């Protein structure tokens, strides 16, 4: 009798733990589902096709950058220069488009992103400067170059029907092309992180740089490559953003670094490095787009977006701290 009671109690407890475990593991996914369900139930405009498409579109701009950033954060570094890098790629696209045509411009922009990303990596690893402060300086340099190129915060146009359809087109008239690109980016990054030797190296460097170095891994090269991936992803996001807006300016992505890092962190990737979840970042990007769409619909002043983004970043970190506390318990 007594033993059955204990067993029952144990089952009860393990169920509770299971639920708790599930919620702590998939909290961002649950949060996304709940907020979408509530918003769709109370607001007819929110569940309209146009708005849902717009959410997917907005999610893909931050999401594509966040995919690369997840890999970099797993390796134990950061890149705060992405807003400047994106602006520079944007104004370059505008200049190259009439010369090279849509196809080559696309590759030129992504290559420039990879190149600038590698430059960040070299500055961080070879000059041994902490990543976030080095990339903060690089952000200023990229922004300045973009400003000089355009002669100020002037908006330059990106108009080429083929190129613009990258941003405005949709598969079957439903799924925006940038969203498809986002899915492709995440699949590629998932392959890199979880199914390749390089991914294992990334995690090794992120968990313990000293151990990785001792084991003979080329730590600097691994990091530089991760920075290059971030640069490439950011430039890709810049391509779609520029194509969608059909314009570009140096400041087209102000605050992008904050959004991207917030997306990664809210998705559950730890800033300590060594592990990361791309599924979490994917969901995080969607969650951010949903919240920002809700703020728009509710007619909240645009300035609240600043407050919301920052507050989300800090509270996501708080939730992570709480989660690791629960896991330890």
């Amino acid at each position, binding site marked *: 009798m007594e033993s059955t009671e204990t067993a029952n109690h144990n089952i009860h407890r393990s169920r509770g733990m299971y639920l708790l475990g599930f919620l702590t593991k998939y909290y961002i996914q649950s949060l996304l589902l709940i907020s979408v369900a509530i918003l769709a139930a109370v607001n007819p405009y929110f569940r309209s096709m146009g708005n849902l498409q717009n959410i997917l579109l907005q999610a893909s701009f931050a999401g594509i950058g966040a995919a690369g950033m997840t890999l970099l954060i797993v390796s134990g570094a950061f890149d705060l220069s992405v807003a400047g890098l994106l602006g520079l790629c944007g104004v370059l696209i505008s200049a190259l488009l009439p010369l090279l045509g849509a196809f080559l411009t696309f590759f030129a922009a992504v290559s420039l992103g990879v190149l600038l990303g590698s430059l960040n990596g070299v*500055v961080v690893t070879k*000059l*041994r*400067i*902490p990543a*976030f*402060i*080095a990339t*903060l*300086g*690089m*952000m*200023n*340099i990229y*922004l*300045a*170059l973009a*400003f*000089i190129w355009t002669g*100020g915060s002037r908006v330059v146009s990106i108009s080429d029907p083929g190129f613009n359809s990258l941003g405005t087109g949709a598969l079957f008239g439903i799924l925006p092309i940038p969203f498809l690109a986002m899915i492709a980016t995440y699949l590629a990054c998932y392959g890199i992180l979880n199914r390749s030797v390089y991914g294992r190296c990334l995690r090794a460097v992120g968990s313990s740089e000293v151990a990785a170095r001792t084991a003979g891994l080329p730590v600097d090269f691994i990091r530089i490559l991760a920075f290059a991936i971030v640069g490439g992803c950011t430039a890709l996001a810049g391509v779609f953003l520029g194509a969608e807006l059909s314009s570009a300016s140096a400041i087209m992505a102000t*605050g992008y670094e*904050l959004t991207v*890092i*917030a997306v990664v*962190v809210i998705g559950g990737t730890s*800033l300590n490095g060594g592990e990361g979840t791309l599924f979490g970042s994917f969901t995080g990007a969607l969650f951010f787009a949903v919240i920002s769409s809700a703020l728009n619909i509710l007619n909240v*002043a645009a*300035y*609240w*977006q*600043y*407050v*919301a*983004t*920052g*507050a989300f*970043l*800090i509270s996501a*970190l*708080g939730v992570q*701290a709480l989660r690791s506390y629960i896991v330890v318990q």
Partner: protein
Amino acid sequence: MSNAVASHNVRSSLSLANATRLVQVAESLGVFVLLVIVVTTASILAPGFFTYTNLTNTLIAASITAVTGLGMTFAIAMGGFDLSVGSVQVLTAIVVASLISIVDPPLAILGAVLTGLAIGLLNGVLISKLRLPAFVVTFGMMSVIRGVALLVTQGQSVMITKHIEFGLLNNGKILGLPVPFFIMVIVFVILSILLKNTAFGRHACAIGGNRAAAIVSGVNIDRVTIAVFGLVGVTAAISGVMLASQLMIVDATLGTGFELQAITVSVLGGTSLSGGHGNLIGTVFAALLLATIASALNILKVISFYQYLAMGALLIFALAIDTARRAFIAKSLLSRS
């Protein structure tokens, strides 16, 4: 035998301390020499640089940066950072500009300083109690406070029309020197005493030098962390008040990139990002250097975007020097032990 080892250890640790001090002196001197060179070059190349008016303006600009830079030096010595100072500066400038139409200037200034203190303490609490990395918390706070500043002003600018004697805080002269310079000197003296001669300052350096050792020695890490971030908030608020009295019209877009300047002057002045010590006088010289460069570029009519570029390059340069210095100290440690 053991005596010989002990004396050898003492000697090597002494010579290490000497090497470190030598590097530190060389560093302040280095920035000072650089400052003299830049001032001389600017005086020759940029006609109108070496005039009373321009020098005064340069000194005012340097003082505003230096005040926050001094607070930042304290935080970096503790192994922390504050990326929210630009937003705090603009919010407190708005607070003082708004309050001054209601209350007397001293009360308005007090309101601004308390706002800065409150934000700084909040940063400190989040960092120490939730054990979150300083730069992400202050990065998030940078966005939050900027948003609050935009919300408070609704994107409009706030003009100071009442109590225009508030401008004396900027234009006033004592012995021919502008008031902001004296504010900076007062902040410098207070922070120097705090850093070198109080338990609080030594604890802050101890945390930056070796956190684990500081915990074991019974330093109350949380309390020191919260106090240091509170201090940074106050210095940012003082810079905000100085900015408001300089411009007399403020809006929420001011102060972007200010955090970068504050960190640059600290590191350029010889405070290592690895923490453990703060070079306050170096910070002051570096702020003067930065303001001189900006003023010379202005007179030479170099467009402001290039100043952005110079700023970023200077930061990377200062950080590279910092790395080289750390390598040098590590090397002398190895060769002497």
